């Protein structure tokens, strides 16, 4: 059996600071533990640098399952509590189709078509009152 695929991402995902924004680029297939580590790293970096925005570029991600979806939603919720806004950028169309069928629409998550559009979105005023609001609860 041969595996001619991109190597799985282990350990830490690099978190880059560009002015007031953190840029996180997810590539390939993540271990669950890597995704959870990223969640912690982003929180720590927001606090230590005082950035006001987080862009998560997922254009290199082939699937978003309910675990990764939950991690993305929690990063956004956690960033909001730390006074930063989060935009998920570059989702592939096949990933979007699959997430909707899976039932994973993540209503609280702000998205942009690419990282540049996400940066522009974050440089503007925060007009969306629903932004990063509480997740809809099923009762």
């Amino acid at each position: 059996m041969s595996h001619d695929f991109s190597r799985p991402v282990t350990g830490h995902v690099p978190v880059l600071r560009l002015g007031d924004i953190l840029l996180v680029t997810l590539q390939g297939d993540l271990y669950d533990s890597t995704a959870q580590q990223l969640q912690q790293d982003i929180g720590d970096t927001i606090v230590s640098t005082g950035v006001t925005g987080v862009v998560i570029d997922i254009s290199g991600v082939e699937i978003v399952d309910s675990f990764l979806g939950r991690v993305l939603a929690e990063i956004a919720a956690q960033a909001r509590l730390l006074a930063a806004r989060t935009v998920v950028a570059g989702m592939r169309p096949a990933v979007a189709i699959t997430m909707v069928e899976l039932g994973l629409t993540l209503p609280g998550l702000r998205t942009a078509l690419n990282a540049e559009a996400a940066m522009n979105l974050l440089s503007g005023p925060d007009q969306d009152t629903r932004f990063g609001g509480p997740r809809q609860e099923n009762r």
Partner: protein
Amino acid sequence: MQTAAGVEACLPIRSDMDLVWVRQHVRQAAALLGFSLVEQTKLVTAASELARNTLVHGGGGQMETEAVTGGPANGLRLTFSDEGPGIPDLERALSDGYTSGDGLGMGLGGARRLVHEFAVDSTPGVGTKVTVVSWAARSPRPRGEL
């Protein structure tokens, strides 16, 4: 058949690292069988949900992959089995929003929507076996045949 070598496999599911190999193998197998990108993405996502169930709720297990050929379209069958506690209330486990772990409660019911055939065989105290099959869409016929 020639693609069988790249499709048939039995992979252990013992850690989150194994989940990565499960996803990569299912993608490779689906690509070999002619699944489109969207079909591959759906099946790999379903496999990821089911493999995580095997790991988290079943205490680990394995996934077998098998090509289903001979019909009008190529199919891929995935069988996830564990010897865990089993699922006491299957109907509830399949409903959206139900979670016994720390996911979004989309695992089993969500995976079912992403595949064409779905079967669960679970005996409390003995284990759980989830079998799914997806089919590659038939490739469009050449113009001459129309």
